[in-house]
């Protein structure tokens, strides 16, 4: 009799030892994942819960957040998300989008029972690529799932959703170029009777020596502004925001920059209304 009691006790301990870790860490095998499908300019994203097949500790509450704060909403438009959980008896089973906070959220809660198993696809939403998008790209959306198990355990799962989209519009470059009269006057400066020399010689442009380039297209571009002198003794350089322009100016969409031409060198002869050179604006690529 004594031996049978010991055997029963031993078996009970063994079964408990086998059951306890799986009960406590039942959710450890659960994984969060996403799947994307592109059709035309519509990208459908499905959030999935993997390995929720025959849980020993089921899900009683589920909150899934998709962080869309990094999304350029002028290029990718978010459509209202939907819950894919088939459970009409849940207390709440809804998906919403908060554009101000940039969060797509699924809320699922039961007070009794658990999320039906198996369940894999839990939430879906659509990103629509704007028809004016001229360059494709990739954006990463962090996804977080907070699980409340029937046993009371809480756990968090995380994954990243990578969305790749193609250009929808043919890229074109459109720039606006504005230039002043480029009217320059040379002054010998002030006569110094002590040195018998003119001092402070300079060129003045009367605020006409500028070129402005604005990007109005749907592609970024660059602009390089150069002066080619017709007279060997005169040279010119362009300055942007007070700094010598040595590299092309980058112009993003809608950006505008102004370059000012500064001349140097003393004319070798007296002249009036003479063309000193040519300004060339090179519009390049990004």
């Amino acid at each position, binding site marked *: 009799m004594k031996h049978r009691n010991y055997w029963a006790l031993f078996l009970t301990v063994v079964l408990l030892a086998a059951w306890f870790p799986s009960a406590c860490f039942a959710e450890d095998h659960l994984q969060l994942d996403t799947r994307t499908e592109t059709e035309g300019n519509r990208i459908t994203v499905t959030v999935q819960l993997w390995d929720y097949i025959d849980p020993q500790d089921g899900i009683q509450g589920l909150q899934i957040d998709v962080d869309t704060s990094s999304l350029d909403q002028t290029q990718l438009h978010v459509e209202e998300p939907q819950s894919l959980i088939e459970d009409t008896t849940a207390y709440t089973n809804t998906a919403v989008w908060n554009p101000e906070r940039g969060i797509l959220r699924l809320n699922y809660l039961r007070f009794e029972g658990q999320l039906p198993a198996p369940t894999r696809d839990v939430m879906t939403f659509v990103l629509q690529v704007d028809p004016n998008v001229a360059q494709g790209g990739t954006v990463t959306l962090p996804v977080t799932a907070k699980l409340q198990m029937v046993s009371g355990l809480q756990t968090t799962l995380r994954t990243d959703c990578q969305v790749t989209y193609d250009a929808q519009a043919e890229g*074109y*470059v*459109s*720039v*606006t*170029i*504005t*230039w*002043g*009269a*480029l*009217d320059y006057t040379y002054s010998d400066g002030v006569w110094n009777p002590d040195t018998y020399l003119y001092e402070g010689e300079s060129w003045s442009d009367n605020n*006409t020596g500028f*070129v402005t380039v604005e990007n*109005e*297209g749907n592609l970024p571009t660059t602009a390089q502004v150069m002066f080619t002198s017709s007279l060997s003794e005169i040279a010119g350089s362009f300055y942007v925001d007070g700094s010598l322009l040595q590299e092309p100016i980058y112009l993003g969409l809608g950006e505008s920059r102004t370059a000012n031409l500064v001349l140097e060198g003393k004319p070798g002869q007296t002249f009036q209304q003479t*063309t000193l*050179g*040519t*300004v*060339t*604006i*090179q*519009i*390049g*690529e990004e």
Partner: protein
Amino acid sequence: MEKEKKKSIPLWGAVLLVVVAAIAVCVAVWAVFSQPARPVLAPDQAPAQEPAAESIPGDSGEKLESPEGGGSVSLTYSRDVTIDLSDETAMLYFANPGRSNQDMVLQVVIRDNVIVQSGTLAPGNQVQSLTLLQDAADMLSPGSYEGNFTVLYYDPDTGEKAMVNTEIPLTITVQE
């Protein structure tokens, strides 16, 4: 009486003469048959209107603000140009929107050679096809070239050329 020594060209001198003559012939042949770069000749006065120009659909023509004595232009273009050697035409897209206050002349330039030069494009006009300059097709063979648009600006009232021009890099595909 000593015999007069006959003066004759030494052998090495004869060889040298032949070599120099051969080099001179080669240089002459190269000079005659090599094609000099076609100069980029920007007209000082605006040429006649471009016959292939067409109105830009939906162009409102509302003018840009222009500084006194200066100019203000808007450009819209595609960076890809295709040249058809059989037709001697260049398929491209370039527009001088109605907002501009300057006339334009468009050149397609490859390695300092002007391949195409349009007539005057008044504001509100665009071109999608231009004829190659005479003999330009002979300089090209099927393939891809890097080139430029050169855009020249002219006062619409006086026809006087502006001191400003624009260069735009292009990819030019040449096909038979």
